[in-house]
């Protein structure tokens, strides 16, 4: 089992969700983050003082999947989140040792979906 963490552009949220659904990945946890990378930021100006904002709004996906789902999930995300512009984001894959469904207490691969 793997835990897939993907950082994408906010406006891609629905597309990615869509694409994941088509890849039969229907369960995920999403959060609002700010990120900094190659993408240039912008300047905010207030009452004559300026500030360079380099942390830009992004959306973070956290998806636990069984090994056979890793590839399709990654492909779905890449396909749907890519605009080709700097700032498209990253995907990280972390080993997942255990997964438990709170409702039933089931664990392991059956608990993921």
């Amino acid at each position, binding site marked *: 089992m793997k835990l897939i963490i993907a950082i994408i552009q906010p406006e891609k949220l629905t597309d990615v969700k869509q694409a994941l659904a088509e890849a039969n990945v229907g369960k995920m946890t999403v959060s609002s983050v700010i990120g900094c990378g190659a993408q240039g930021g*912008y300047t905010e100006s*207030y009452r004559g003082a300026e500030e360079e904002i380099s*942390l830009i709004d992004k959306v973070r996906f956290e998806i636990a999947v069984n090994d056979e789902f890793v590839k399709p999930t990654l492909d779905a995300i890449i396909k749907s989140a890519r605009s080709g512009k700097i700032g498209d984001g990253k995907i990280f894959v972390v080993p997942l040792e255990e997964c438990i469904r709170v409702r039933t207490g089931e664990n392991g691969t059956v608990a993921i979906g």
Partner: protein
Amino acid sequence: MITKRRIISFKDLYKMFFPALLLIGAVTNISAADAPVAFAEQTALDELKVSMAVGIDTVWVLLAAFLVFFMNLGFAMVESGLCRAKNTVNILSKNFIVFAISSISFYIIGWGLMFGNGNSFFGIEGLFFATGADNSPAIGEAYKGDYSAISWTGIPLMAKFFFQLVFAGTAATIVSGAVAERVKFHSFIIFSFILVAFLYPITGHWIWGGGWLQTLGMWDFAGSTVVHSVGGWSALAGVIVLGSRLGKYRSDGSVNPIFGHNMSLVTLGGIVLWFGWFGFNPGSTMAVGDGSAIAHIAVSTNTAAAMAILSSTITSWLIQKKPDLSMIINGALAGLVAITAPCAFVSIGSSAVIGFIAGILVVLAVLFFDKLKLDDPVGALSVHLVNGVFGTLAVGLFAQDKITGAATGSGLFYGGGFKLLINQTIGVLAVGAFTFIAAFAIWHVIKLVFGLKVSREEEIQGLDIGEHGMKAYPDFQGFITK
């Protein structure tokens, strides 16, 4: 406007008589009845009567004007609340600056074009800076000056100017909401200036400035057409030229809801507008007289708003399955816009009916404009255009001759036949055609010269950063650690 001159001539007779008398020294109908010995006292009495009336009327008109000015807050809050947080600074800026623009442009030329003595189409005398000859508060025959069309009210020139100014400002704020979340800041400013300097005063002259529609006998008491539909037509032209917001309409043609970011502000704005309308409609008597007209108008205005709230709630409940607050508030405003023209010409009962219809119309209109893919984030078209038109026609249907003094003649439902309804229809069509075409052309020119819509990237990031370099709620948008 004739409307009001008539009100006066029936309700504040003395006003029409005494000043003349005081100046030409004739004998009044009243003192005529008395022994000559009583004459001196009689005139003294008349003088007093007039001088007192001037004071009371000026206080009333100015306080009403302050309430109308306050409607700027209502528009700013309703419009920003119905848009997204990322565009809030921009909308607030537009609504805040637009009244400044209106104040200047109406002062420079708008007032002159609207109320200056001229031809049937626009004013010519005393055109600039409201500095024409004027002997206000003299009224009627006694008035000598460049602004005869508004000489029926016996208050100082500056009071007349200020009251009319706040009305002009209203027309401009209406446009702001309809083009929100995508229009370039400076392009909007330019349009607003032109609207208040030229478009608004010209049609205003037709109806309130002694122009052809006034002569024809078209009645618009407080401006369903003069103010609201003019704002509405300009907004419609803008929406068409500008196009819709990114992502408003899904590929499958269905509508993607773009939620307003702050319903508290929308409600706040709605109540403030309702409050301001008590200056807008009752204040349009521009005279207190025996108070019965302003009291009647206050109640007819409130009744229409109340009924519109109920009908829009019901309509929205039936159509959307749950009552949508944004629709209910649009409903209240729809009722107020609709009763603006007829408030002094119809019974309280009729005002209830007019309000009820307005509340239904506005909900259907919102759905309708979305079907046409005319993207109006705040419902300005449904409120001001649709109900501005409806309210003006309602005069032709529900008017009761002289109900508060004005000799409108009766409407269709009160035995007056089609005459009045036809006049109202002509007014609606003429003003609509002129304003829409002119506005459409102006928006186009601005588009060519300055550009109209912000870039796709700016629209995604929000106009607050794009146009102003700042956020409206930095502590809640993303997060800050200061």
